[in-house]
């Protein structure tokens, strides 16, 4: 297996200057990830599951530790790489999927879905075709493709967002409860898409409220609850 990610002693906490206090979230997290591997993050509320994802994505700055990512440009430590490199990696190899769409005024659904492809230099027409296909798969009605998602319902926005975030195959995907409040059909489409990506070699780290949705994708579980040991084989864990 090809190694994608090595997380070494990653520690994150927040300093709240106006309150004058420190907030510890997680300490000394270490695990690795191979291509095509799916890791589920587990832990009580507040154990830092989402925080870990955001730290890996560099939305949060880690306190200490290393996040060694094997990019197509060579190994890069996401914990301390230059911002501009991280921005580049995000555009091409590292995805972050949430349930929320950042809609922009006057940008149509299909255009917003096509955006990652266009940033990866796919021709506009081709990108739009693929975008429409993805919207179809996630069950967004064709009437809405040219409409502006700013006015969509939460559910529809979520589908647009999933289509967008999953359209471009990445090396590593971070999934932050993408299934929450999704209808059955879309959930199925999502799981199918994740499976396809996984088979294509995309490594994934996910946080799911209802891991049943993705049960058969899970290779390993990492528990962030402090007293637990970190990594265990999935096989027969009671979820």
């Amino acid at each position, binding site marked *: 297996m090809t190694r994608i990610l090595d997380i070494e002693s990653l520690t994150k906490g*927040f*300093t*709240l*200057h*106006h309150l004058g206090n420190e907030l510890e979230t997680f300490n000394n997290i270490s695990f690795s990830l191979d291509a095509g591997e799916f890791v589920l993050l587990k832990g009580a509320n507040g154990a830092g599951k989402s925080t870990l994802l*955001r730290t890996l994505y*560099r*939305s*949060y*700055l*880690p*306190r*200490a530790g290393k996040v060694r990512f094997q*990019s197509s*440009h*060579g190994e*890069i*430590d996401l*914990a*301390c*790489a*230059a*911002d*501009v*490199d*991280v*921005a*580049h*990696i995000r555009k091409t190899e590292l995805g972050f999927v949430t349930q929320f769409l950042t809609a*922009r*005024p*006057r*940008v149509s659904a299909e255009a917003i879905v096509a*955006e990652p492809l*266009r*940033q990866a230099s796919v021709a506009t027409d081709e990108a739009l075709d693929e975008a429409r296909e993805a919207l179809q798969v996630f069950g967004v009605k064709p009437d809405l493709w040219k409409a502006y998602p700013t006015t969509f319902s939460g559910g529809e926005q979520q589908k647009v967002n999933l289509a967008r975030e999953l359209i471009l195959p990445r090396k590593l995907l971070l999934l932050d409860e993408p299934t929450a409040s999704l209808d059955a059909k879309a959930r199925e489409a999502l799981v199918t898409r994740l499976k396809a990506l996984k088979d294509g070699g995309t490594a994934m780290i996910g946080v799911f409220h209802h891991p049943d949705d993705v049960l058969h994708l899970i290779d390993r579980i990492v528990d962030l609850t402090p007293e637990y040991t970190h990594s265990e084989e999935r096989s027969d864990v009671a979820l």
Partner: protein
Amino acid sequence: MTLTLDAPRIITTKPLLRIENVSKSYGDVRAVRNVSAHAFPGEVLGIVGESGSGKSTLLRIMNLEELPEEGTYHLDMDNTPEAYSGNLFEMDRFARRMLCATRIGIVYQNPHLGLLMKHSSSGNVAERLLVAGERSFANLRAKAKDALDASEFPLERMDAPPAQLSGGMQQRVQLAKAIALEPALLLLDEPTTGLDVSVQALVLDTLKRLQQDRQITMVIVSHDLGVIRTLADRVMVMRRGEVVETGLSDQIFQDPQHPYTQQLVHAKL
């Protein structure tokens, strides 16, 4: 863990804009203190800070309207002409003006600074083309039209003077003027401040589109965090003439490190 401009860069290449150790004073007031900034090709760099933080001064320095007492400035453009290859602060006045007139575009908060209010809108765009040596009337018309169109300006009004246009439209004319020559660098000084919210959104959207379609490197200054958040890839936070923090846009907004940045982010409505 602190991250600086000198964090290891593996992938990305040379910055297009490189400003180092720039200081500028007005009398006793030190407007910009020892500031360094990089902007990479195709990137949007946001500069935030409250009034008087020196962000607009820094932008004017980038536009070479102001020269600092200290520091260096390099622009690494495609086929950079020999005249522009050194420290741009040390260029002679003529080269400086030509550089600003042809390779750097700017949109000011106050359209009066950037536009000739009584000339036609298309003429405002044409002026830049004329400076660059375009001497065919038909070409001027066509190119001005293209630039105005790209800025989503209603073409049937292209010959109306900006004085007769709304604030949002004036900003579009400024933008068209700035991009008419395909600048290497586009500077935006509070481009949406003073516009009402719906117009603001439209102007921001135009900027975003332009950035995506043309991959123009932009530096945008604003005290409006929403604007910065929408547009910028990376953000630089300034306070009292100094850079207190730089980071990826979402990092600055979600995990600000410096006490001042935290205060700023939490103060947002």
